[in-house]
């Protein structure tokens, strides 16, 4: 079974759904997403850990005159992310099934299109193909927010506007940068034009070209994550997006950006990555602290989760730009962990709102735990995982990230560690103010229904399972991350991971 089937299946199902109409579309979408999950599992099972080469490769010439190919492949960087994507989309599709949508055929079509775009971006091994899928991701969310979004029309328009303007600017910068990469590489090395990532790695650009191209890519990825200070679209954008779409947007799409750093930026622009290491670490640190402060003072539960994502994505960026194996492994594990907590969190936002008369404001909640001990317990487990309590896989990820940064730039590790404590403050605050204290007269303490458990329980089970065995993710990606950071590590003068501890003492770049 090839990767193409996995990638295009959601779109095909979505098209059928749109054609067959409102009655069939929701159920068909669920079946499609479960089928995609099954295929992804089969890839993970057949995946051979311990190799740093691409597996299940598809390589067709696409636009041969421009050296663009339809090249797909799986390695340690994306194998678990494929599983994550299909799992979260399945959850989100079931989540969406719990309520009625206007014009459901079209709604599920966009959800399927989004999944195809994300899977494509994760599998793409050609720069232009990646950019194409990356830009394709935006289209369904434009419609999902604009048509099925939350709030009144004005709010939706504002949210959509900001989202599209921001990400479109980022996308265009990236498109320019991608084209320039291929063109300049062929010019500087006097070869045929090619955009295959494996080839581009062998054709390093001059340092000057690397730097401006790096900045273009970084801008696109940081907007998508989002990172401070490029998160201006986040409050309005997140508020306007319908929750099932938001769950995958925050859970998966932000990971495509972080993944882009590991897949493209570090291997293809190693000099620039080293050059801008401290800038990116600084942005990551600012995201952690600023996101935490905002999550701590936000009055709306959805925004608490939204800003906590800014902080968590900050940790992931921090790990990537530690530019060593520990940091990269931690970042990759954390991408999975963050995805796994985001979907249940946004689902819980929906459950809380339905118990607080439709309001997502903390002031309208309180004391909900009383008749809802199961909901309270599940929320608590997800909250503790989000704040990376030791014992969760999130902690294993943050531990590796901080360790990587500690070896590279210790001062950043110390300041980032503050973010760990702050996460405890904002997550528990949201939990206590919604579930505990006295019953708010406007809130209704109602136990979670059996149907809703169908979304929440699988995600909590996976969170707990990964907490018991984070090695599942780590062992799959180890060989590839080692290779992915090898080049930048060589540039920073760090040796391999085994001796990096001794080496970093002498090298203070």
């Amino acid at each position, binding site marked *: 079974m090839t990767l193409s089937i996995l990638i295009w299946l959601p779109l095909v199902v979505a098209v059928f759904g749109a054609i067959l109409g409102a009655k069939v579309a929701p159920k068909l979408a669920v079946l499609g997403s479960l089928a995609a999950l099954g295929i992804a599992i089969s890839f993970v099972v057949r995946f051979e850990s311990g190799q740093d080469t691409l597996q299940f490769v598809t390589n067709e010439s696409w636009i041969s005159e421009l050296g663009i190919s339809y090249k797909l492949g799986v390695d340690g960087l994306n194998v678990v992310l494929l599983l994550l994507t299909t799992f979260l989309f399945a959850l989100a599709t079931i989540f969406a099934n719990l309520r009625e949508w206007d014009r459901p055929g079209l709604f599920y079509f966009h959800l399927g299109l989004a999944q195809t775009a994300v899977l494509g971006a994760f599998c793409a091994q050609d720069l232009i193909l990646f950019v194409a899928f990356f830009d394709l991701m935006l289209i369904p969310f434009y419609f999902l927010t604009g048509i099925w979004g939350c709030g009144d029309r004005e709010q939706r328009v504002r949210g959509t506007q900001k989202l*599209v303007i921001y990400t479109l600017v980022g996308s*265009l910068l990236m498109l320019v940068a991608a084209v320039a990469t*291929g063109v300049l590489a062929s010019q500087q090395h006097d070869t045929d034009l090619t955009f295959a990532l494996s080839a581009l790695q062998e054709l390093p650009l001059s340092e000057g070209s690397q730097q401006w191209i790096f900045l273009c890519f970084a801008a696109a990825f940081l907007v998508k994550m989002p990172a401070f200070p490029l998160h201006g679209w986040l409050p309005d954008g997140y508020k306007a997006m319908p929750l099932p779409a938001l769950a995958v947007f925050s859970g998966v799409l932000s990971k495509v950006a972080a993944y882009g750093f590991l897949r493209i930026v570090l291997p293809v622009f190693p000099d620039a990555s080293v050059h801008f290491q401290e800038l990116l670490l600084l942005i990551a640190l600012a995201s952690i602290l600023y996101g935490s402060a905002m999550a701590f003072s936000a009055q709306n539960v959805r925004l608490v989760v939204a800003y906590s994502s800014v902080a968590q994505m900050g940790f992931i960026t921090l790990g990537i730009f530690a530019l060593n*194996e520990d940091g990269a492994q931690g970042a990759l594990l954390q991408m999975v962990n963050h995805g796994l907590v985001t979907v249940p969190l946004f689902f819980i936002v929906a459950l809380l709102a339905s118990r607080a008369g439709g309001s997502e404001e903390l002031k309208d909640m309180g004391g909900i735990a009383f008749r809802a001990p199961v909901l309270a317990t599940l929320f608590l487990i997800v909250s503790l995982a989000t704040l990376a309590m030791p014992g969760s896989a999130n902690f294993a990820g943050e531990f*590796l990230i901080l360790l990587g940064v500690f*070896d590279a730039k210790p001062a950043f590790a110390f300041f980032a560690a*503050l973010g760990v404590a702050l996460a*405890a403050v904002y997550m528990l605050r949201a939990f206590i103010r919604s579930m505990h204290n006295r019953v708010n007269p406007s809130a209704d303490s109602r136990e979670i229904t059996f149907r809703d458990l169908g979304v929440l329980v699988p995600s909590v089970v996976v969170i707990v399972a990964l907490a018991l065995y*984070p090695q599942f993710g780590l062992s799959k990606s180890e060989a590839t991350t080692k290779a992915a950071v090898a080049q930048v590590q060589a540039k920073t003068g760090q040796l391999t991971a085994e001796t990096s501890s001794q080496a970093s003492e002498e090298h203070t770049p």
Partner: protein
Amino acid sequence: MSTTTWAWLVLAFPLAGTILIGLGHKRLARGPAGAIGTLAILLAFASAVASLISLQGQDEHHRQLTSSLWDYAVSGSIDARLAILVDPLSVFMMLVVTGVSTLIHLYSISYMKSDRGNARYFAYLNFFVFSMLVLVLAANFLLLIVGWAFVGAASYLLISFWYRRDTATKAGIKAFVINVVGDVGLVLGTFFILRYSGTLDFLGTFEAVRAGAFDAHEGALVAGCLLLLVGAFAKSAQLPFHTWLPDAMEGPTPVSSLIHAATMVTAGVYLISRMFPLFEAAPAAANVGAIVGCATLLVAGTIALTQTDIKRVIAYSTMSQIGYMIMGVSAGAYAAGLFHLMTHAFFKALLFMAAGSIIGAMAGAQSLDKMSGFKRAMPFTFGCFVVGGLALSGVPPFSGFFSKDEILAMVGAREGWFTVLYVVGYIGAFLTGIYTWRMIFRAFFNRPCPEAVELEHGHIAHAEYPTNPANGEREDTEVGFPGPEHVIADREQPMKIAMGLLAIGATILGVLQIPFVTHVITDFLEPTFADSKYVHLHASDGMIWFGMILGTVVALAGIAIAYHIWVRKPGTAAALQARFGWLHRFLVNKWYFDELIDFLIVRPWAAAGTFFRTWFEPRVVDGLFIGGATGIVRAGSAVVRTLQSGFLRYYAALLLLGGGAVVLYFLIASS
């Protein structure tokens, strides 16, 4: 079965109890939940005893066993397995934890029987015991941190168990956050150590230290150990991370007894003992530990003199006693510190249980101002409180006398500036006598208060409108927790059994380590601490005799003064308060630590959050960065509305055109 298999079983029973009670919470409430929880811990205790017997069967040089289930996180420079280390120290801790926990579970069956959250309570309590056992059995830093954080979470859950009280949820988040700061300290400390030891395993790390991995990097080791101390101080309520412990008294009283007296708060003592090869190689850090422990025992002792909430008095006393232990193990007196940990677990758990019984008789009120004359009304509780009080204040031959004295003798034997710590330790002992007996005299002596009179007539007082003891607010009773019925030990068999056994322990456990006669604990722990450079540290015979006499004298003097102030001349306390008003205010306000932390950390942070939300985000992020873009959009919003099509499409088209032009340029340039 092998020693490690028994140890795994010790972990398995409480976990199974948690899961069982959690899943069956609806059916098990108000009945079997307590029995199942207690049984699970009892089985864990039995397994701990089995592993003790099995360990003692091993040759003395092979009493360090590890066992691993699976790779937890093995990647790059970390090698964390799900592994336990069974040696005399961890077996000792297992026995103390499971033993005391069993009795406290038993006590809780009565104490919590009318509480609606009964099943939730026992699920949490079992989870706590599981977490504490993970902490003491962990064979590497990562798993230690997991146990460390789990006990913090369990503590949070139980502090805010009565979550309808906002005082309880506030106390819970405070405890949790301060403990997370401690966790972060542990994590960063681990990084420093891992960098040169190359392994997360304890045994491997100690091996590396002995092999000289830190000889050229002593600074890193000291930094690492100081960060570990942050973790220890936060968990063990040492200055300046102690402010959560008194507030933690919001939890049900058996919780205070188990978590905030007998077990979890002593984790810092365990940590320093476990890490002794590191601290001995980094004496600067160990000295900091000793000094902070000493300062804590004194500060907490002074605060305890003036508090009026009976549970808070005992909480400050706990802080003070842990100060002794931290001082002891930091000074190299490992067996003495751990011996005190054990005796303290008995007498302090006992005191909290007795206090719970008084609170029951007071219908939930906790203020010493309201209590008096309970001596005749509840003789059993009185007897237990007196035994606990005698052990706490260090009167021979009660257990606390021997353990506290041994710590002080060893600290004195270090000579030099340790003599200062030695002297302060005895001043602390003097204060202990006063505040402990102040509590006893006020609660049990003098004229009986109305509740005591009612109890003498056979009725337990019942508050018509239950109030939150912390702030006097009316409770919303419809929820059914705290439970509507109050219980006292004198009438409840399970409470009597638990307290009776603890009272026996608090009385006689001193026989394990009588100077010149027995040294059971020292011998048992010997294999763990055999490599310590303080293994031959001993106080001289003269000093031991001097210490025992001095200890007895200061304890009795403290009791006598308390008797004078609160029984013989009851007006004295008020007169002293009037005379030394400033000092009284300073102590009642707990040296203003809360205010200081609030001023230095909490408020600036909250202000930053508000500033970001109300000013920076709307103006700078929204204004500056969307800047031109939405500025234009907003300016043209009238046009947008009339056109209905939205400015967005126009804008997007413009961007696409511009970007397309650039792309085109590159493609043309390349061909």
